[in-house]
């Protein structure tokens, strides 16, 4: 039990001293998350928009598939991405294995269903009258899309925050395709896995608290945007 209290002290030490290994893990986590959030938003928001806004045949099926993908285990995604990025695999020539971009590819697969499903839900609950109002005001397709997105912006931010939570806290993908290489692809979560694997529980707790601190900073900035 005392390793939890010990962990609190160590977290403070790590943060105040600016421990280089922790800093490296933080930067790696943020870089991977930034890339994957970017990709999943660019693909997921339009996809979720189409899924929620329009009526089409097979809409229910598409929605079910997306919702099922929410249950993809991270180690499974990691294994799939490894199969593609390995030198033996189809995309091996890109040399992406054991790099941050490889982690981001996996994390995008993880975040996409979240963004898509939640954006679709937000749009599902949008006032149907908005579309008619915008069209009567003379909006073209692009303006329709952008204005509608603006109306549901808080829902999309919520979707992004949820996806970010999954992405920043996963271990399976980072471990499998990142390789937990010190200074290069060691994220906070793989560092926690390593430290606890070595029996260094206090260090694991400390790193976990650092991750929470980052999440807090992100959420505070977002709440500022919300008001």
């Amino acid at each position, binding site marked *: 039990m005392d390793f939890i209290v010990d962990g609190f002290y160590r977290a403070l030490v790590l943060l105040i001293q600016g421990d280089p290994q922790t800093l490296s893990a933080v930067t790696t986590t943020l870089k991977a998350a930034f890339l994957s959030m970017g990709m999943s938003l660019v693909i997921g928001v*339009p996809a979720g928009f189409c899924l929620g806004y329009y009526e089409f045949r097979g809409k229910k099926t598409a929605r079910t598939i997306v919702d099922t993908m929410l249950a993809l285990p991270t180690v499974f995604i990691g294994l799939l991405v490894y199969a593609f990025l*390995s*030198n033996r695999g189809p995309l091996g020539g*890109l040399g992406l294995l*054991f790099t941050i971009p490889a982690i981001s590819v996996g994390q995008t697969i993880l975040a996409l269903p979240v963004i898509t499903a939640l954006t679709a839900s937000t749009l599902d609950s949008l006032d149907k009258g908005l579309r008619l109002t915008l069209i009567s005001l003379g909006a073209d*397709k692009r303006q329709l899309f952008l204005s509608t997105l603006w109306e549901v912006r808080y829902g999309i931010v919520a979707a992004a925050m949820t996806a970010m939570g999954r992405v920043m806290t996963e271990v399976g993908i980072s471990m499998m395709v990142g390789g937990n290489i010190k200074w290069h692809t060691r994220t906070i979560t793989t560092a926690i896995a390593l430290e606890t*694997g*070595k029996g260094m529980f206090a260090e694991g707790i400390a790193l976990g608290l650092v991750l929470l601190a980052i999440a807090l900073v992100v959420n505070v900035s977002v709440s500022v945007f919300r008001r």
Partner: protein
Amino acid sequence: MMKKRFMTGLLALVAAIAVAGSVHAKALMMATTTSTDNTGLLDYLAPEFTKDTGIELKWTSVGTGKALKLGMNCDVDVLLVHAPPAEKKYIKDGYAESRKEIMFNDFVIVGPKADPAGVKGMDVEKALATIRSGHKTFVSRGDNSGTNKKEKLLWKAAGGPLPEKEAWYVQTGQGMLSTLNITAERGGYTMTDRGTYIKYSHKNGGNPPLDVIVEGGVILKNQYSVLILNSGNCPKAKKDLAEAFSAWMASDKAQELIAKFRLLGKPLFIPNANQG
């Protein structure tokens, strides 16, 4: 319009990824085992290697089984593992062209100080047979690592089939330090390499809950070697950098560094690159 913007954005991101993914010039990617990494040996040697050769050493520490698989798939440039029979077969199967023995330590059976199975001082074969007949808790790595392979060999030597489904045989599927922790929690026995055990003792302030119960004998020797991958199988593997690493690890300087790597005043690995 919306589709075009979206496609451009997507392409830009893919391009950014490809650029970001370009690998550093003189970097060597190694797959190694948890025992070389967790003991801190690689963190200790790597900076010296870079200083002497200008090559950056990057490594991922996985079980030996996975390390060999990564080598087969050409996802790494060089291997540092400790499973001589598996390594020799690996070379015969054409995945590696050569191996160079670098250092060794030994495996030991550790267990509770009270030694409930009463096997202290026995030969390892007899000890395991006694543990088995007494149904005493034995914790295994269960992960196809070099350590795990050696352990399976010992069970064979002790006689009888592998205790796979026995209730007293606990397979953790995890690294050595994790397994030691679980062994201590369960009050059982396990097989570990001495280097990791010393690290474990050190972490427990020199007084760990597990003692060395059985040691000694040629069968318990734990040999670490560097494997150069077969360039026929992996043409893109950085063979010249791999050979530089192998040569450096066998050099007098590195061998001396390995000998000097101690915790609690005890050496964790014994260099033996230039003996036979």
